[in-house]
């Protein structure tokens, strides 16, 4: 499915968060949204998935191409996991399937399939509080995969995790994108994640959030690995791009406090 973000602007009360954002997300493409805090990247992601109504502009699904068995074309993975603490791992995944006309066997098959994909098969009956942060986010991924999304919308999925877990999950995401050719929008403030996962990096500037540059990374995702000179060069280029903005953001937070 191709998405077109068309002239999207958004204001919270007096603050203009986004202005005239316009770009496309091609099928099979991973787009990273980066920028300093307060540039509106999470706001933009909420608008893309229909969780926030933009002040003006619109998001268009340009075609109805969906994976087979797709139940929820635009599917989120949340920074804070958003798991129901009263449901087990399998129950949390079941939650998003229960309201669809699937037979019990089909539902169970989907749950088993995504648990296997995320290496969670042994944890099907565990409760979220028993899991580490990394495991919780794997459940978040499994839940999203269970509805066979056309576009995966990931809101800083690694930000709540410790550094080691982040490395492990980053590799898993990279595998997932390389293997499935999933279309995704990935919000992050971590440039390393962006250059490892994205075909296209949209750098936003702040106050108001506008597109500063769209940076393309041509290396196929499956060929990328940590410490690759080409990726480091991309990362440095991106940092040069947003460094001044990040400094300004840092200073401004000082004033607010």
């Amino acid at each position, binding site marked *: 499915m191709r998405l077109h973000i068309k002239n999207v602007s958004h204001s919270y009360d007096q603050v203009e968060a986004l202005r005239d954002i316009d770009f496309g997300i091609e099928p099979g493409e991973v787009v990273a949204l980066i920028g300093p805090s307060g540039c509106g990247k999470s706001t933009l992601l909420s608008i893309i998935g229909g*969780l926030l109504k933009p002040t003006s502009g619109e998001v268009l699904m340009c075609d109805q191409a969906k994976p087979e068995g797709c139940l929820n074309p635009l*599917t989120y993975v*949340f920074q804070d996991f*958003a798991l*129901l*603490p009263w449901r087990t791992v399998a129950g949390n995944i079941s*939650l998003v399937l229960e309201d669809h006309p699937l037979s019990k066997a089909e539902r169970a098959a989907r749950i088993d399939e995504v648990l296997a994909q995320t290496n969670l098969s042994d944890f099907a009956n565990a409760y979220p509080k028993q899991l580490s942060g990394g495991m919780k986010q794997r459940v978040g991924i499994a839940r999203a995969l269970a509805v066979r999304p056309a576009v995966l919308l990931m809101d800083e999925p690694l930000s709540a995790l410790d550094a080691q877990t982040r490395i492990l999950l980053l590799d898993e995401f990279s595998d997932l994108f390389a293997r499935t050719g999933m279309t995704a929008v990935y919000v992050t403030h971590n440039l390393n994640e962006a250059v490892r996962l994205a075909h296209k990096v949209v750098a936003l500037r702040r106050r108001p959030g506008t597109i500063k540059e769209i940076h393309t990374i041509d290396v196929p995702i499956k060929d990328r690995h940590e410490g690759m000179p080409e990726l480091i060069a991309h990362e440095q280029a991106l940092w040069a791009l947003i460094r001044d903005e990040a400094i300004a953001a840092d200073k401004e937070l000082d004033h607010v406090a």
Partner: protein
Amino acid sequence: MSRDVEQGAPASLVRFRATGFNPKSNPVAAWASFVVVIALWQLGSSTGFISELAMPSPVAVAKALWQLIVSGDLWLHLGASLQRLVGGWIMGTVAGLVVGFLVGMFTWARSPGVALVSALFPIPKIALLPLFIIWFGIGEPSKFATIAFGVFFPTVINTFGGVDNVQRNLIRMGQSFDLPMWSVIRKIILPGALPTILSGFRISSSIAIILLIAAEMIGAQYGIGALILAAGNLYQTDQLIAGVVVLSLMGLCVSWLLGRLDRWLLGWR
């Protein structure tokens, strides 16, 4: 920069400072405290230090209680009380849950609901019993109404507080997966609000017991409240205290049941 000035002094131990402020439970001490209080009480009565008329001895109370059990009067009174308690509490709770959910979820119900509840909550509900007697007669309905009314308001307040406390990100998650509204309510909001609702049950059940006894003292033939009042009028303090003991046991049972309910419904915590 700080710099150590004294050198060459003998080594000294670092003292452990994080003591206290960490009470632990001790079931033996809990039971022992009952035994000690009852023993002291019996001792006071036996030695004549406590007048038998003002405060009968534990043995006398136990005898009175036994009398009530064998004569069958206790079951008559207890049965009447439990019927009122359970009936009134369930009516008030069901109504309170419904209104609480509406107030917690819908803008149209929010402000009117909160305003009315805030205005009516502080009224001591027993003050309305005479009115309920005029409306419903001296029989059971007026007692049910008093208890239900008393239970209704704290239940509303707790329920909408619980609904307010459900994490917004969970609701948004449900919406992002296109769950129908009924599923969001049943699978996300209801279980999310349940801990607060259940702790509200503890408050509402104790209010229900208070109102039950007050209502029975105002006008009832049977019931623990009526039993206590009648015993007091006849200076039968042993029977009076026996009634109070039954009330205490009833309170304990209710709290035990609610504890079981907690563990059953909130096992995931």
